[in-house]
C-alpha cells in the first residue's frame, strides 16, 4: 500500500525509493524527507503548496495515509487539551452533547479554515472563562481513563500467570501418569505376585489419582477472578478490588513441642576438669583472684581458668589421618585420667 505514496514536490514514490519517508507540518501537506532538508535548509520557509510559513523542526513523520488526518489529529489534540470538560460538569446529558458538538465544530472549522477569526475568538473566550475547570480536569480526566485501563492490564497480567499455572499442572499430571506406568511395568517384571492383582491395584491407584485431579482443577479455578465489570465497563460492586483484597489470617500449622537437649561438645582431646572442681584441684593458686568490682559484675576467676584449660586441652588428640568419627570414639574410650595417652 505504501508503494503508492508519492512526494508532491519531487515525485519520488515509495516503490522507487523504499527509504523515502513522508513528513507533515501544521498545514497538513506532505513532503518527503529530502525535500524538507532542501527547502527548509534555513530552518523555516513556506509550504510549497499552500505557501503558509512553516518551521523545519515542526515537521514530523506522517502517520496516516491521508495527511489531512494527520493535521486534524494535531489540531484535535491541541484543542482537546483546553476543551476538556466532562459530563459531570454539566447539569444534563443534552448540554454535554451540545458542548461536544461545539468542540467538534471548532475543530472542524480549524481543519478546513472556515471562519478562522471567529473560531479563534471563541477559543480565546472559552479559555478565559473556563481556566480553572480546564486546569482541574487536566488531572482528573487522565485519572479516570487510566484507572479503567490499568485494571484491565492487571487482569491480563493475572491471566498470563494463570496460564503458567495450568501448564505446570498439566506437566505434573503427565509426569505422574508416566511414573505410574513405569511402576506398573517394573512390578510386572520383577514382582512375584499375580499379574492380575498387580494390574488391578494399578487401576485402583490411577482411579484414585483421577479423582484427586478434579479437586486440583477446582482449586486452580477458585483462583479465577470473576469478571469485575459489566460489558459497558462499569464495575460490579463497590470498587471490586478492595473487597477482594481481604487476606485470610495465616493458619498456624501444628508442630511438635520444643524440647531442650543439652549440647554435646567434642573436644578432640582429654576432657578438662569441670568448673566446680577447679577450686579443689587448686588451679586458682596460679591465677589472679577477681577483685570486688569484677565480682560485682558476676565475674569469677573460675570462668577464665576453666576457659584457659578447655583451650589448652581441646584438639590435643586431633590428627588429620583419623576421621572425625574415630576421634570421637577415641575420646569416648579414653578415661578422663589417662592424660598421657598417645595418639598416632
Amino acid at each position, binding site marked *: 500500500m505504501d508503494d503508492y505514496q508519492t512526494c508532491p514536490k519531487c515525485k519520488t514514490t515509495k516503490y522507487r525509493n523504499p527509504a523515502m519517508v513522508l513528513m507533515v507540518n501544521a498545514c497538513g501537506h506532505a513532503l518527503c524527507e529530502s525535500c524538507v532538508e532542501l527547502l527548509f535548509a534555513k530552518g523555516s520557509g513556506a509550504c510549497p503548496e499552500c505557501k503558509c510559513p512553516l518551521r523545519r523542526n515542526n515537521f514530523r513523520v506522517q502517520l496516516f495515509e491521508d495527511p489531512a488526518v494527520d493535521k486534524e489529529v494535531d489540531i*484535535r489534540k491541541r484543542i482537546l487539551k483546553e476543551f476538556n470538560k466532562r459530563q459531570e460538569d454539566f447539569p444534563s446529558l443534552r448540554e454535554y452533547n451540545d*458542548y*461536544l*458538538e461545539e*468542540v467538534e465544530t471548532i475543530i*472542524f472549522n480549524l481543519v478546513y479554515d472556515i471562519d478562522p477569526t471567529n473560531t479563534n475568538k471563541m477559543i480565546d473566550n472559552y479559555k478565559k472563562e473556563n481556566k480553572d475547570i480546564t486546569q482541574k480536569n487536566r488531572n482528573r480526566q487522565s485519572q479516570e481513563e487510566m484507572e479503567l485501563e490499568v485494571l484491565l492490564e492487571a487482569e491480563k497480567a493475572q491471566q498470563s500467570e494463570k496460564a503458567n499455572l495450568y501448564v505446570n499442572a*498439566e506437566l505434573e499430571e503427565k509426569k505422574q501418569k508416566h511414573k505410574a506406568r513405569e511402576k506398573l511395568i517394573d512390578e510386572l517384571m520383577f514382582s512375584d505376585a499375580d499379574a492380575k492383582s498387580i494390574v488391578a491395584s494399578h487401576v485402583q491407584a490411577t482411579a484414585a489419582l483421577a479423582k484427586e485431579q478434579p479437586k486440583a482443577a477446582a482449586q486452580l479455578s477458585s483462583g479465577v477472578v470473576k*469478571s469485575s465489570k459489566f*460489558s*459497558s465497563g462499569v464495575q460490579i460492586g463497590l470498587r471490586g478490588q478492595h473487597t477482594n483484597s481481604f487476606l485470610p489470617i495465616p493458619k498456624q500449622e501444628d508442630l511438635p513441642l520444643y524440647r531442650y537437649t543439652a549440647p554435646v561438645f567434642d573436644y578432640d582431646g582429654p576432657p578438662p576438669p569441670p568448673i566446680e572442681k577447679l577450686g579443689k584441684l587448686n588451679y586458682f593458686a596460679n591465677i589472679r583472684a577477681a577483685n570486688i568490682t569484677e565480682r560485682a559484675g558476676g565475674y569469677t576467676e573460675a570462668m577464665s581458668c576453666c576457659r584457659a584449660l578447655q583451650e589448652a586441652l581441646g584438639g590435643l588428640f586431633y590428627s588429620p589421618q583419623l576421621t572425625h568419627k574415630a576421634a570421637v570414639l577415641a575420646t569416648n574410650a579414653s578415661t578422663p585420667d589417662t592424660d598421657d595417652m598417645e595418639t598416632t
Partner: protein
Amino acid sequence: MKLNVDGLLVYFPYDYIYPEQFSYMLELKRVLDAKGHCLLEMPSGTGKTTTLLSLIVAYMKAHPLDLTKLVYCSRTVPELEKVMEELRKLMNYYEKEMGMEQNILGLALSSRKNLCIHPSVSKEREGKVVDGRCYSLTASFVRARHAADDAVPICEFYEGFDAHGKEFPLPPGVYNLDDLKEYGQTKRWCPYFLARHTITHANIVVYSYHYLLDPKIAEVVSKEISKSSVVVFDEAHNIDNVCIDSMSVKITKRLLDKCSNSITILETTISNMKENDSKRLEKEYKRLVEGLRDATIARETDMALVNPVLPSEILEEAVPGTIRTAEHFVAFLKRVVEYIKTRLRVQHVVQESPAGFLRDIHTKVCIDRKPLRFTAERLASLIRTLEISDLTDFSPLVTVSHFATLVSTYTKGFTIIIEPFEDRAPTVSNPILYFSCLDSSIAIKPVFNRFQTVVITSGTLSPLDMYPKILDFHPVIMTSFTMTLARQCILPMIVSKGNDQVAMSSRYETREDTAVIRNYGNLLVEIAAAVPDGIVCFFTSYLYLETIVSSWYDQGIIDQLQRHKLLFIETQDAAETSLALINYIKACDNGRGAVLLSVARGKVSEGIDFDHHLGRAVLMFGIPYVYTQSRILRARLEYLRDQFQIRENDFLTFDAMRHAAQCLGRCMRGKTDYGIMVLADKRFSRADKRSKLPKWIQEHLKDTNCNLSTEECVQICKRWLRQMAQPFSREDQLGISLLTLEQLQSEEMQKKIQQRAQGV
C-alpha cells in the same frame, strides 16, 4: 398412529415407530413441561425431525397457552425443505384423522435470494446483490420519489403486498419456499416480505440459524417472537462455531480501501444535499438530538443495514455530540478508517485486547469509547437520510462500523489479532485484522434468556457435557439415545497398523513417512477390493490429501485402486467438487463402484448423505485436529481455559472427535442401511478418544476391533458383509427396532423404554 406419551395424545404420521423415537418424545415432553433447555443426541436416520415435529405440534394443540410457537432452525436450504416435507406429512395425517382443516400455519423463511420473484432482481446470483437491488426498489424514500415521479422504478410485488397483504393473513397450511413463491405469484405479492410479516403469527417457523444467532439479523427478523416459544436447533454439533462467526469481524486492506471510497461518496453526497435539500439533514440532526430510539423506528424495508446488538440502556441515550452532524461523523469515520490502516501496517503479528485497542485509538486519534459505540447506528441513520439506494458499495464501511461498535461494547470474550501475512505465504504482505469472538455463549445467551425452551439436537453431540460448558447454560435434560437394531448394521473398527506392523497415524512427526502413507494406501486398496459400491475416505486437511495422493501415484497405489473402483477427489473449488460428487453417484448407481477422497470439515463431510450403496464404507485417515497454530484458535483455547476451565487438549480432542463422528455418520442414514466405519489411526484406540465418540457408535466398537492390522480388518469386513447381504425384511425388525402400536403399548416394551431413557 396415535400415541400416548406421558399423558399427551400425539399423532404420529407413520404406522411404525422406533423405540428410540418414543423415548425421545418422552424426554422432550419432560423438557417442555419443565420449560427448560435440553441437549438430545439421537443417531442420524432415526427420524429426529418427525419425532420433534409431531410431539411439539401435539403439545401446542394440547397446551395452546403455554406453547405458542415452534421455531425450527436448520443449516441449509435443502434441510429446510426436508423439514417442511415432514411437517406437511404430519399435517396431512392430522387432517385425515380428525377430518377437518387444521388451524396451524407453518412456513419456511430464507433470504431474498431464494424468495425473490421480481423478474430481473431474481436473476441475480449473489445474495448481497439481490439484497441491494431489492433495497433500491423498496426503500421508503424510493417509493416516496416514485409517488412524485413515475419514472422512478419500484417493485410491483412489494407494492402489492404493502397495499393488501398486511390485512389478509396467510391462510393456515404448510408453505415451503416454492409454495410461498407460488402464492406470491398468484396474488402478485412479494413472498419475502409476506413471509417476514407472517412470522409474527405463524405457529411453526422454519429458518436458518443466522436469523436467531446473528445479532445483526435477529434484531430485525426475530424481534417479535414471544417468550412462550420453543426453539429447536437441528444438526447443532457446530453451533458454537456459528455463534462465534456471527460475532467476529475480519478487516483486510482491500476492504479499508473500499471504505475510503465510500467515505468520499458520503462526503460528496452530503455536500450536494446541503446545497439542494438541507432540510433533510436538519431533520435527521434534530431527531438524533432527541435520542436514538426514535431514529431506529423506521420502516421495515429500510432495515437493510442491520446493526450489532447494543445494550438497551445505550439505545435509550442520545447520540454523543461528537458525531451528531453529518460532516463531523464522516470526518470521524475517516479517522477510524485511517487509524485501522496504520494498525494494519505491522511487520509482525499483534494480539491485543479490546481495552488496549480502545486506549490506543484514544491516544492516537482522540476517539473516545462512547461515539465509537454508536458508529453502526449513526451510519445506518446517515445512509437512510442520504437516500443512498445502492447499498452494495457500502458493505465494507458497514463492516468497519460493526467492528467499531463491537469493540467498544464488549471488553470481555473478544480479541484483536493483526496478522501481516498468511502463515502459508510469509513473503506476501496481506495484512488482516481479525476481531474474533472467543466466547460462543455471547451470541446464544439472548436466545437462552428469551425463550422458555431451547432444544439442541443432532446425530453427534458427544461428549454431551462439553456443550453446556462452552455455551454457558444449564440444560434440564441431557440425553444420548442409541439405535436399536435388529442386526448389527454398523461395523466400526480401529485399524492401528499395516500388514508390516508399522503403526498408522497422521501425527505430525510421521506424516511424511512413506511407510505410513503406503500402509494407508494398502488399506484403501484392500478394502476397495472387498467392499461393494461406494467408499468415502476422509483426510485431515486438503494439504494432507494432496500430499498423500501424489505419493500414492508414485507408489502405484492409484493404479491398483483404479482396477477396482473409480476415483474422485474433493477440492476446495465448489463447482469441481459438485461435479465430482455427481459422477461419484453415477458410478455407484450403475454398479461400477467408486472411491471418493474428501476432507473432514470440508463440504462433503457436512450435509451430504451417502446412504445405502453410496457409502458402504467410510475410512477416516488420521484424527481431524484443527490447525493448532492458528492464532485465533490459540486465543480461543486460552479463553476457554481461563473462563470455563476447559483444558486445551480436551477441547481439541472434542473438536476433532465430533468431526470424525460427523464423517463416520455419513454412511448410516437409516435402519435398513449398513456401513463399515474404519478409523485408521493408532491414537483412536486410546480411551480419551474412544470415549468421545457418540454412544451409538461406541456401543458397536468392541475391544476386539480396536487394534487391528489391515489384514485382520479386511477379514472382518468380508465376514460381516456376507452377513449383511442376507435378505432383510421388515418382519425381522418388527418388535425389536420397529414397533407397531400394540407392541409399543405392551408392558414389556414400556419397561425397556423406561430403562433406556436414563440421562447421561
